């Protein structure tokens, strides 16, 4: 029996208002491939950040023992020195530097600050050979595909004498062939005694390579299964099997005629011209209806919503949009807004708010015409409006003159919502409306959604939290890899059903 190389015991990590991890336990054997699965937000990434020192010792409670020694990492450098290397989902490569420059970035083969390039190249060749990448080390990263970039990341990890490799969804954006090659590589590393933590949603991959699997849910370890215990049903039940309490306001849906109909919608990635991000999507939303779009991260939900909202994302966008039976032009944001469509972004700081300006100016921004005449703003009308929405959505602030950058996540979200409510849309698309906000504020947001539906608005909610979708929607579309792969009435839906739709589509694709 191989020896234990890593022990994480009773790890608890809290963020203001949220317990991200609660007494999580994890143990990894030498030469083991250990999979970690869980819903988005279950705490997988947080756990890995604790392990790699991104969250330094002291910011969490619990104990990390590595090779029997207690570790107090103060940063990613400390963990890398011990041979723990993490490869994130978003690759951390510099696109305009060469493969070898990236491999040795921050760890240059240098004496007195002068880099020995010929030796670097020799070592880079060796490393590339190990990971099976047949490329000139002087090639720029931007000239090789994502699959090969992934291998460069692994070569980079090997250059640091890795003992424990952590891969966060390594195959999320890889083709089938590249994924298979990567998994083979992991098996090869296993032979060399390198341990590996694999975070993945793809259960077929996990059952292929993993020795053990640990399931996280709501920041807690649910169970650790051995290879012979692994089955799709077992994993899904453990992943989503949380009791539903009344975290959602009650609602009596009054659903009317179809308001919005999107037909045959397709769009391509703005940079990779041949990557289709939306694949002939058809959806409808009715008056007073709350429709959910479920899916994993990277399934193309945000890309779809943004391409729909004035072509804010993607290229070569085609498809028809009908509003109340009339075909409409949504080719610019201004036109989409004029037709009564609003999109509340998933990233309120980057796309939703002007953080250096105050609440009042943010609320009126999408509908300045509503507080002005002939282009001249009526200051007092604007103030009245801002105060009205501050009260309506219960924004907690000293006044409407508080900078939005100083508000909490929940209150920022209410400002963004207010902005779009003031634009008085018929169709409201909410992208991850409760991401990163505390439970209390979540309930308030749900109540606002329920009220808007009761007022007869058509609402689309994109969310990675399945419980949330089941709790607040009337109907759910399931999306995977830019395609609608399932549709169900919320009353008949369950987290298992949604997961199954995703996993099935995944299996069909791979």
């Amino acid at each position, binding site marked *: 029996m191989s020896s234990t190389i890593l022990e994480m015991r009773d790890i608890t990590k809290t963020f203001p208002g949220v317990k991200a991890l609660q007494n999580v336990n994890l143990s990894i054997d030498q030469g083991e491939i250990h999979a970690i699965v869980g819903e988005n937000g279950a705490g997988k990434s947080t756990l890995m950040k604790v392990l790699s020192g991104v969250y330094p010792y002291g910011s969490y409670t619990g104990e990390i023992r590595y090779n029997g020694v207690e570790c107090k990492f103060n940063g990613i450098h400390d963990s890398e020195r011990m041979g723990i290397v993490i490869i994130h989902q978003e690759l951390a490569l510099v696109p305009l530097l060469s493969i070898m420059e990236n491999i040795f970035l921050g760890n240059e083969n240098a004496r007195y600050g002068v880099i020995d390039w010929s030796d670097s190249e020799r070592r880079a060749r060796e490393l590339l050979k190990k990971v099976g990448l047949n490329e000139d080390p002087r090639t720029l990263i931007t000239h090789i595909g994502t699959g090969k970039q992934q291998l460069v990341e692994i070569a980079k990890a090997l250059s640091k004498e890795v003992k424990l490799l952590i891969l966060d969804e390594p195959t999320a954006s890889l083709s089938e062939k590249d994924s298979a090659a990567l998994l083979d590589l992991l098996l090869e590393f296993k032979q060399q005694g390198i341990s590996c933590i694999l975070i993945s949603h793809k259960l077929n991959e996990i059952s292929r390579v993993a020795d053990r699997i640990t399931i996280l849910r709501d920041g807690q370890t649910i169970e650790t299964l051995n290879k012979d215990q692994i089955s799709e049903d077992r994993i899904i039940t453990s992943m989503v099997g949380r009791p539903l309490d009344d975290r959602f306001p009650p609602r009596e849906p009054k659903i009317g005629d179809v308001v919005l109909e999107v037909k045959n919608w397709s769009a391509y990635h703005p940079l990779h011209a041949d990557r289709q991000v939306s694949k002939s999507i058809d959806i409808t939303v009715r008056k007073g209806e709350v429709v959910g779009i479920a899916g994993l991260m990277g399934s193309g939900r945000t890309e779809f919503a943004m391409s729909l909202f004035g072509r804010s994302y993607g290229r070569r966008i085609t498809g028809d949009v009908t509003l109340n039976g009339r075909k409409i032009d949504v080719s610019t944001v*201004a036109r989409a807004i004029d037709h009564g469509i609003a999109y509340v972004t998933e990233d309120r700081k980057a796309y939703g708010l002007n953080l250096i300006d105050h609440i009042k100016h943010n609320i009126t921004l999408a509908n300045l015409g509503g507080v*002005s005449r002939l282009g001249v703003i009526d*200051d007092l009308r604007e103030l009245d409006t801002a105060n009205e929405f501050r009260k309506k959505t219960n924004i907690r602030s000293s006044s409407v003159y508080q900078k939005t950058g100083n508000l909490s996540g929940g209150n920022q979200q209410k400002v963004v919502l207010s902005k779009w409510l003031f634009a008085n849309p018929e169709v409201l698309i909410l992208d991850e409306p409760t991401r990163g906000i505390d439970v209390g504020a979540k309930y308030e947001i749900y109540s606002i959604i329920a009220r808007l539906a009761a007022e007869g608005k058509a609402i689309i909610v994109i969310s990675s939290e399945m419980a949330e979708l089941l709790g607040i929607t009337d109907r759910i579309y399931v999306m995977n890899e830019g395609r609608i792969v399932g549709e169900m009435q919320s009353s008949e839906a369950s987290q298992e059903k949604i997961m199954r739709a995703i996993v099935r589509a995944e299996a069909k694709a791979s």
Partner: protein
Amino acid sequence: MTTETVQVPVRTPQQRQAATIEALLTNLRDYGLILALIAIMIFFQFATNGVLFKPVNLTNVILQNSYIIIMALGMLLVIIAGHIDLSVGSVAGFIGALAAMLMVGWNLDDTQWAFLSNPLVAAFICVVVGGFIGAAQGYWIAYHRIPSFIVTLAGMLVFRGLTLTILGGKSIGPFPPEFQGLSAGYITDYLATWLGMAPYKLPLALGGTPLHLTTFVVGLIAVVAFVLVTIRTRRNREARGYESEPFPIFAIKSAIIAALVLFFVYTMSSYKGLPNVLIVMSILIALFVFITKRTTIGRRVYAMGGNEKAAKLSGIKTDRLTFLIFINMGILSALAGLIFAARLGTATPKAGTGFELDVIAAVFIGGASAMGGVGQVAGSVIGAFIIGVMNNGMSIMGISIDWQQVIKGLVLLAAVVFDVYNKNKG
């Protein structure tokens, strides 16, 4: 919508006093810039043995800085939008040269194009050309996402070169007197003439100095209008149930501003009266205060500078807005170029050299942020005056140009460091 009456909270005297002190402190921070200008002026008043405040000198300071201030208005929008324009000095020089060639250099008077040499027509053409220059640069910045720093750096070289080319490397002039009047002229004292008292002198009891009556009365009307408007705004707020700043602060603030303007007007009136340029400048300042504070366009510029992606997703056409901002900058640069040329009386190949630095410095001293999204017209104007008064004061003191630059550079750095420090603290 139902109107609700909002109760203005009743406060105890202690609370009222605390609020007054708090408001005083916020105001001190807000008005730090104007206090700095006053301090600098007082310093130079002593350092120059009282020359600075002499009516003739004060008038000069305004004339010398009018073109910087006019360009600063455009530059403020450019900087709020998150861009920069390095070409304004060259464009101003080029437009001055174009005006000289139209009015004098090309001898159009004897040809069928004679009408083009009419000062009014020529000036109009120049302003239009300025707009096109702005459009040409703005096109690359707005629609092709070329960094403004690079586009306008290119523009700076191009228009400096074109200035030299069309002037043939030498100075062209003199401009016709009607055109020079744009910068060198003063409004006529219509009022005194109408009253049959021209040239008017104060009664002996009040010193007996000559006084430009029209200037004084226009200034007085402006001050009264200012006070009335602020009082009305305050009343309106209170009528809608909103709190306004404590009355003492409001009164002191208004009184200080009114007193400053009155002092200024009086000084002007005791020299030759209102310069024509000052009228043009005041109208433009008022217009840009209005645009930035009250119009949807102004609001959109701030939003775009604060978070372009969010602005875009709120339906703001950021490309077009950027394009318009650069057209505006081109027009104002042209106007400034005309004023500068009219002031010199001739167009020289060197005209406008280094203006961009004074203009950009004025906007940053005035509290604009290099990251975009922040900045005020009042701040930029005061910033321009701070630079102008320093230039003027140091010249009178006989400090060499070399050291003047050193000092100006340090003041710019100090002003921005102070601003950043203040913001981080608050």
